[in-house]
């Protein structure tokens, strides 16, 4: 290698250290996560430029490592939500009307997304059965699969899977326990059996 060629190779300098992080966040290949206070206690929340990707109560994941293990996506921790998201989420969690919150459900199957979309149409203060969701999908035989999809809802509270109960009126399962489900529904004014 000549001196000139060596001098040219020396011009191959490293980019600023935060360029990889910024690129992954901007593309949506990595999320950002933070904790927020809510009427239901502190929550972990993850989001991409497209919308919220995960919500979990702090009591279910005590450390950021627990949340990242659960979330299974590359993510960077920051200390606050962006303002546009913060306003929408605060309003949604206070009112139970969550349709203004953008969500990012990439990575889920078409069926899972359809289940969550149907679930999002259930208004605060009302409940529907797993069978109702299956009917909305014009697939009445899929009740069990609907239950599985709701059990894996990555953004509970934003997609209000707590408003889905058993057809006999029993409260049914909830990822964070039936007690929390009951509290959420009572808070929204739903009439429970």
């Amino acid at each position: 290698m000549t001196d000139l060629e060596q001098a040219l190779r020396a011009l191959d300098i490293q980019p600023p250290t935060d360029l990889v992080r910024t690129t992954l966040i901007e593309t949506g290949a990595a999320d950002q996560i933070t904790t927020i206070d809510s009427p239901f206690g502190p929550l972990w929340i993850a989001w991409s430029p497209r919308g919220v990707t995960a919500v979990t109560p702090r009591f279910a994941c005590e450390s950021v490592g627990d949340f990242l293990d659960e979330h299974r996506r590359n993510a960077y921790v920051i200390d606050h939500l962006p303002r546009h998201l913060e306003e929408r989420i605060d309003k949604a969690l206070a009112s139970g009307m969550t349709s203004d919150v953008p969500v990012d459900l990439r990575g889920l199957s078409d069926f899972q997304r359809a289940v969550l979309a149907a679930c999002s149409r259930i208004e605060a203060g009302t409940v529907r059965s797993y069978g109702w969701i299956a009917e909305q999908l014009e697939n009445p035989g899929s009740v069990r699969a609907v239950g599985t999809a709701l059990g894996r809802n990555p953004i509970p509270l934003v997609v209000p899977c707590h408003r889905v109960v058993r057809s006999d009126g029993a409260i049914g399962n909830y990822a964070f326990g039936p007690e929390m489900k009951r509290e959420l529904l009572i808070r929204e004014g739903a009439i429970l059996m």
Partner: protein
Amino acid sequence: MDTMTLPDQAEMRRSILDDLDGGFTLMVMTYQPGIYSGALRLTRHHDDAQEIAQDTFLRAYRALETYDDDQVATLAFRPWLWTIALNLCRNRVRRSRGTSPLPSEETISVLDEDPFDEEGWNDRFAKLTVTQRTAVVLRHVVDLPIIEIAEITGRPTGTVKADISRGLDRLRTIINGEDHR
């Protein structure tokens, strides 16, 4: 990432097919430094180089989201990324022609010392033709093989070799002229 542990094409392809976000992260870590370095020499601006290094991967990610497995399986990642980056460089240079390079806030302290003789190299590269500058930067700064430069620039390998050779000759003449000043 250490250059000794760079993943090969097959590994990256498997990774992208298996998990787009994970594979894409590997792709950014592997190729973004070279694209930043090359874009810096071609645009002469740190801020432009940073934006181009970022926009290249934004476009690549959007494309990969729409590609099926067969398209990913036949993709040669580095020349593909560099084709995107070079277009962005050309657009940027066209838009900002005549402006002098401005340091970004982050790089002011580095430029104060100017250990890489940035200003000197910017002046020297500016005296090459666009094709010579592109070929020399891709070959000798970024360290791409000639066959990839030919693919990226759409020029035959013989022409790329001639561009590099003439570019190096011109740089030697410029540097000799500086030494005799």
